[in-house]
């Protein structure tokens, strides 16, 4: 059996010394670099008592087929002790098309739940009181529309917007960089994001209007440093746009939230979360003059790495996920999604998602890692890795500043090329067996088949029938008027949220609303960077 490695590096390629001691961290200054837990620069966590005070939110990303079925899954997860909801939408919804659109064929309800109108959103949250549960929604290009539907459901449930708590992903920049679910060009997209941040600052004080996401950047094949640097530089871009709109930093910055990957390299991930908090605290204090502590605190959700799951020997994925989740907890995550063992194949079965939730519960209640904040702080290795990660991320941030900001960098294809190169290098290392993936390029064996969630083609038919019925039932003149008003609002410079809300309340469909915006903003095609 081979045991000796030729090179010792993190999974991202950062060299690792034979041993770490005080000499590696001579430069470390306790008050400048660490602080205490709950104190600037929050390297050791944003709360003094951390998980002693409150555990992280266990939030499983979930959604499939039609709203009725997803609503049943949500109620099941809440009964099993899950503490927050997280909505996965299907591809047509993410791209702003109704289920009956030609481009939706074959995709309705496959990667998430199909939502075409306020009616679907009402069904999705039937018997789930929105004042009592926090809800995260993974939606980006049409985020303003889906959020308006959510706000309208709250109105119908009689829940004041000020009581709503949750998170809208709404991070369009990482779509151009990594996940590629964009509709409009970057600048009108940024205007919509800024509209939601402004609207949230005025009307929904407990709701995070954006979750600035590195997760998808990492899944696209970036290194840990690239994930961190591009995400924080995206954050800087959103802050600049909100300031340009006339908001004061401390008015909106406390509600900016983040979302990172929890990948397989245990210490590199923990270093990444610690460096993230530190960089953001200094950026907000020194670059933007934020006074409010909460503006300086980086709060984040973590999800274990989908790209690390293997199709071969799927039960090994339970182990991978548990270790990745532990890194997120030791790194001080505020909420966590653990992937299910079958997700290299399909959306998770109820059985698989239950094991994933139980994994979090074992971490929280059996391992003891929750009993003191930042338990690995002070480790020579971890502190050195945190400093190196911070330095490398700051170098990238300065390069992007030098290009004139993230939109310019995206238009030049810079982050896209950096990620593609990193992902190709990693794949080559796997092929050369320089990186071992258990069950894939080493320790192979025959697989036992596992039971998978099946999603048929009935979702498309059911959703199309509901759309047809809705279009007969609603007052179509009111729909037309609201869409005209939305077009005028989009052509001007005012906040589009009130007009989007009116269209949603009139039961204009997602596709109709996005078409109105497409007519004004145009659509985006990327130049492919191989």
């Amino acid at each position, binding site marked *: 059996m081979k045991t000796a490695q030729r090179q010792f590096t993190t999974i991202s390629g950062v060299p690792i010394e034979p041993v770490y001691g005080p000499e590696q961290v001579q430069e470390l200054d306790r008050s400048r670099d660490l602080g205490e837990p709950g104190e600037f620069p929050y390297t050791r966590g944003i709360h003094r008592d951390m998980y002693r005070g409150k555990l992280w939110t266990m939030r499983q990303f979930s959604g499939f087929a039609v709203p009725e079925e997803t609503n049943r899954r949500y109620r099941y997860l809440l009964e099993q002790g899950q503490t927050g909801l997280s909505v996965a939408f299907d591809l047509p919804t993410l791209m702003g098309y109704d289920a009956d659109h030609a481009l939706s064929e*074959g*995709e309705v309800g496959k990667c998430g739940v199909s939502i075409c109108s306020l009616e679907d959103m009402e069904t999705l949250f039937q018997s789930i009181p929105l004042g009592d549960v926090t809800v995260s929604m993974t939606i980006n290009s049409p985020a303003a529309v889906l959020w308006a539907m959510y706000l309208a459901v709250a109105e119908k449930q009689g829940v004041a917007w000020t009581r709503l708590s949750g998170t809208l992903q709404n991070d369009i920049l990482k779509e151009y960089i990594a996940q590629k679910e964009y509709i409009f060009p970057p600048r009108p997209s940024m205007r919509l994001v800024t509209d939601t941040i402004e609207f949230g600052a005025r009307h929904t004080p407990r709701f995070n209007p954006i979750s600035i996401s590195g997760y998808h950047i990492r899944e696209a094949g970036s290194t840990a440093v690239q994930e961190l640097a591009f995400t924080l530089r995206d954050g800087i871009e959103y802050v600049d746009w909100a300031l340009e709109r006339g908001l004061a930093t401390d008015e909106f910055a406390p509600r900016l939230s983040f979302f990172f990957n929890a990948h397989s390299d245990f210490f590199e991930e923990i270093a990444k979360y610690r460096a993230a908090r530190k960089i953001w605290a200094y950026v907000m204090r020194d670059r933007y003059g934020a006074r409010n502590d909460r503006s300086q605190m980086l709060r984040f959700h973590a999800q274990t790495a989908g790209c690390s799951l293997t*199709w071969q020997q799927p039960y090994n994925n339970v182990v991978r996920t548990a270790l990745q989740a532990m890194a997120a907890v030791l790194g001080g995550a505020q909420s966590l999604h653990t992937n299910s063992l079958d997700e290299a*194949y399909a959306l998770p079965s109820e059985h698989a998602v239950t094991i994933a939730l139980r994994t979090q519960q074992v971490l929280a209640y059996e391992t003891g890692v929750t009993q003191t904040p930042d338990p690995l702080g002070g480790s020579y290795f971890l502190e050195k890795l945190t400093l190196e990660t911070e330095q490398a991320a700051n170098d990238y941030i300065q390069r992007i500043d030098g290009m004139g900001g993230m939109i310019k960098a995206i238009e030049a294809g810079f982050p896209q090329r950096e990620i593609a190169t990193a992902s190709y290098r990693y794949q080559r290392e796997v092929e050369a067996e320089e990186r071992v993936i258990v069950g894939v390029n080493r320790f192979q064996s025959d697989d036992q*088949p596992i039971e998978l969630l099946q999603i048929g083609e009935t979702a498309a038919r059911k959703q199309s029938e509901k759309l047809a019925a809705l279009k007969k039932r609603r007052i179509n003149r009111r729909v037309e008027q609201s869409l005209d008003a939305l077009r005028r609002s989009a052509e001007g410079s005012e906040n589009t949220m009130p007009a989007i809300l009116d269209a949603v309340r009139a039961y204009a469909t997602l596709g109709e609303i996005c078409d109105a915006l497409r007519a004004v903003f145009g659509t985006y095609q990327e130049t492919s960077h191989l």
Partner: protein
Amino acid sequence: MPRPIRVLVAKPGLDGHDRGAKVIARALRDAGMEVIYTGLRQTPEMIVNAALQEDVQVIGLSILSGAHNAIVPRVLELLREKDMGDVKLIVGGIVPDEDADALRRQGVAAVFQPGASLDSIVTFIRSAVPA
């Protein structure tokens, strides 16, 4: 010197996850093939037209969203209609075993599932395309 093998790497459907398509495109290029990458959100018609114009011997479709049963048969049908039956169609992505069998029966030359090595894909294309 023989003419290099020409491959169209295409990303059909609404999904934007292009990591796999890009890695494959680079690997085929490094293996000496001429690679044309379509970019995102291509319809079957766009893909077959591009294959015709670029005169490729192989089309590689990357599909991760579960839409393969709607997309792949349409591409096969268009290839037959345009008398391009000699173009090899290969599919990579998240395709369950039973769907992979069905796609092969319909005329797909090969289906590569998660974990397939770049080498195995290069080797297959070299063996499938007559020199």
